[in-house]
């Protein structure tokens, strides 16, 4: 019900859910994502105009954006931390030209690492005057210590005139830090909604 009450208009929304090792929800944050980045629209420009423009990938290099069938792909397999929904520990405020998370948490089970599970955008559904789809990703903390997560985002596939790259198209800094206990998990949901 909270979801319905808050998600009245179009745009991008996210929620963060923390579970302990028994699957019990211990924290939740849900809000409108203010942080669809410029790179999302750079790819959109390339697609709509069937031309190219500059775009700095997650590696910090400007490979540009062009029209390409893999543009915007953020379906991710397990253990892939270079594509899909990603998380980090940074708190630097979001800017329109962010090209990566501030401090990404990488895949793994070592200290400060977290297991990335597979993630596939769901099918769009229409309800009332809205059309939306949900993309969800679960991260498991098997690092033997607690991990504090402060930011999330989406990395997608992008092709420039010559090279493929990955682009950060969304970045959000949480309203409050989220502690993931050892053995626990964090689930990030992004919902993209259009409203007529």
């Amino acid at each position, binding site marked *: 019900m909270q979801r319905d009450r808050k998600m009245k208009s179009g745009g991008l929304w996210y929620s963060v859910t923390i579970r302990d090792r028994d699957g019990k929800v211990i924290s939740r944050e849900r809000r409108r994502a203010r942080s669809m980045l410029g790179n999302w*629209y750079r790819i959109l420009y390339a697609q709509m105009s069937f031309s190219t423009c500059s775009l700095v990938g997650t590696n910090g290099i400007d490979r540009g954006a062009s*029209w390409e069938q893999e543009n915007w792909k953020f379906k991710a397999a397990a253990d892939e931390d270079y594509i899909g929904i990603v998380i980090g520990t940074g708190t630097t405020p979001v800017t*329109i030209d962010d090209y990566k998370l501030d401090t990404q948490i990488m895949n793994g089970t070592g200290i400060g690492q977290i297991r990335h599970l597979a993630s596939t955008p769901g099918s*769009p559904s229409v309800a009332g005057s809205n059309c939306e789809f949900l993309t969800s990703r679960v991260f498991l903390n098997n690092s033997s210590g607690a991990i504090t997560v402060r930011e999330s985002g989406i990395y997608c596939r992008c092709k420039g005139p010559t090279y493929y790259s990955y682009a950060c198209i969304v970045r959000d800094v949480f309203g409050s830090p989220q502690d993931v206990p050892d053995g626990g998990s964090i689930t990030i949901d992004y919902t993209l909604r*259009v409203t*007529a």
Partner: protein
Amino acid sequence: MTQEEETKQKSRKARNSSGHVLNPELSYKVEVTDKDGRVVQREDGPSRSYVRQWNEIFQLQAGAVASGGVVKDTSGVTQTNAYRTSVCFKCDAGIGYTLTGLRVGKSSTPVSISDYALGAPIAEGAGVDQLEHQLTYFTAPSVVGTTLSFTIQRSMVNHSGATISGIWEIGNYISFTASMMGRFALGFRDVLASAFDIPDGGAITVTYTLKVTA
């Protein structure tokens, strides 16, 4: 247009019901000019009217969907084998081309999320109630402060020999792919606050601004 008339036109803006700027934001401007290029009618305002196909096509890309996507095309046919494509959202329509790109029409039916075409699109040509569709222009993305934006613009010229009245709707047709064929879908549609009349020899120019603010 006199200053008083222009002020009146500028104040005629469609309002966003929630009353605040959204991220992302889509807005439009419509201008009618007479045969001498003088602006005779104008409206601008926020668009609230992405329709379902916009999200459905985006999901094909995000999910790297290889087959089986469902998108209704502008002819009303539900395509059941849509998939990711390099031409998704393509709308750089050339002169006289109306399968994609910005269009105008005469229907004042309110926008619905399930709209798949303009209600009564104006056809290409110089006959009665026809317009000559010009080249589509884009401005490259630019960042000002915390905002990135770009625009898409198209003019349509009236050489029909008479005024074309009752233009109520504007929208954008975009490309997608289904069953190995190029298809076309409605991406967004807006109903104007008032009807526009295009004098013979005049033109209507539609500009959409796509903007995102971090």
